[in-house]
């Protein structure tokens, strides 16, 4: 019961959302803050594989979309793709060297921010200018630093839904 993801996942999402919208929104570096919800999608891919990565990315994107001025679904689309991509690229990294998740989070965050700006621009938002480079770099760097903690937290939140290659193996689900 206590490691039920139906109980743990909402806790994780609300905690991260709260951090993102209050504390981090006021602690910016060069006017840029880490993108924790994107990091959750990345961590979902690392710890859960492609399917869970996509699902967690979709959920975290939809949640943050509720609080953004951009059209609903934009982050959801980008984060789904990021979570899936990381899951595919990172099969089994949890048991490999510590720096692999860090590098993955950095690269995936840069890719995610760029994709977000590209799709946003197609929808008529003004997102591509010189500032985009700063945003992508700062988000990539700060997300990389925060990656080890995020991976642990997301792994915890998956509870009994963890895949077999997780930190602490739980029963494998037939997904």
């Amino acid at each position, binding site marked *: 019961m206590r490691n039920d993801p139906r109980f743990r996942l909402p806790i994780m999402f609300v905690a991260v*959302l709260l951090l993102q919208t209050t*504390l981090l929104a*006021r602690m910016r570096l060069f*006017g840029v803050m880490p993108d924790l919800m994107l990091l959750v999608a990345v961590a979902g891919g690392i710890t859960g594989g492609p399917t869970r990565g996509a699902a967690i990315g979709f959920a975290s994107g939809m949640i943050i979309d509720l609080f*953004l001025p951009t059209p609903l679904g934009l982050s959801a689309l980008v984060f*789904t793709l990021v979570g899936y991509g990381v899951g595919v690229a990172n099969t089994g990294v949890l048991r490999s060297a510590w720096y692999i998740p860090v590098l993955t989070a950095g690269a995936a965050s840069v890719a995610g921010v760029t994709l977000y700006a590209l799709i946003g621009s197609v929808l008529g938002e*003004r997102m591509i200018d010189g*500032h985009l480079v700063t945003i992508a770099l700062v988000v990539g760097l700060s997300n990389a630093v925060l990656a080890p903690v995020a991976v642990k937290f997301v792994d915890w939140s998956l509870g009994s839904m963890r895949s077999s290659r997780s930190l602490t193996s739980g029963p494998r689900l037939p997904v």
Partner: protein
Amino acid sequence: MAVYRRSRRNRFFLVLLALTSVTVLTLDFRDGGDGALEAVRQTARDAFAPVQSAADTVFSPVTGFFSSIGDFGNLRKENAQLRRELEAARADAIRGADADRERQGLLQLQGLDYAGGLDSVPARVISTAPTNFQLTITIDRGTDARLDVGMPVVTAAGLVGRVTEVSRIRSTVLLITDPQSNVGVRLANSGEQGVVRGAGNHNLLPLDLITTEVPVEVGEPVVTSGLERGLFPAQIPLGRVRNVVAAPGALQKDILIEPGVDLTRLEFVRVLLWTPTR
């Protein structure tokens, strides 16, 4: 064989989620800010606003410490400079009060609204938009406090932005630094009209003048023009000219405005009870 089937199922799931996102995106985009999805969004924001407000208060010592690290060495110098500026400002205030009354009369004669004479509602900033692309803030007052879309938001130091979305207990304010923001302004010394565009966080704001050959001085104050059908009433201070660069051979000067308000550290604002005439 099993691996193949597994990866096909993975891909099917990915396509399903991506298509759901695109569908929601299309629906929301088409409704353009009103519709069922917007109602869901409003409800979520309203429900989360009190939690955010509480968390913001809890976190304020941390954020305060973070932002004060950089300031520590400069406090004494800044204090001395502030004293000098205060004296100058006191003198200006006396002259200004007189000029104000005169201008208010003149603007009334032309049927224009004057910002200094408007009622306002104080509000607390409860969060900044959790994104690196748009620059909006959420404040803790809504239609219950007579707020409406389009109302200008200010602090004592000048213009902050305008209300773009409002619910019963909460509203969203688009900052003047947001790339979507345009403010009609007037240079205080020459009276020349122009438009100040947003250019993203921490950036100075570019000013486009209507005529290009007017002399522009560094340090010249910039105020809202309040032209008929404008988005803002007249005479809200916006900032000062920080930089004037005339590239050789170019027709246009590059003029940058430094906002009077530190838009990265807003805590309390005032909403002017004024909406643009449409």
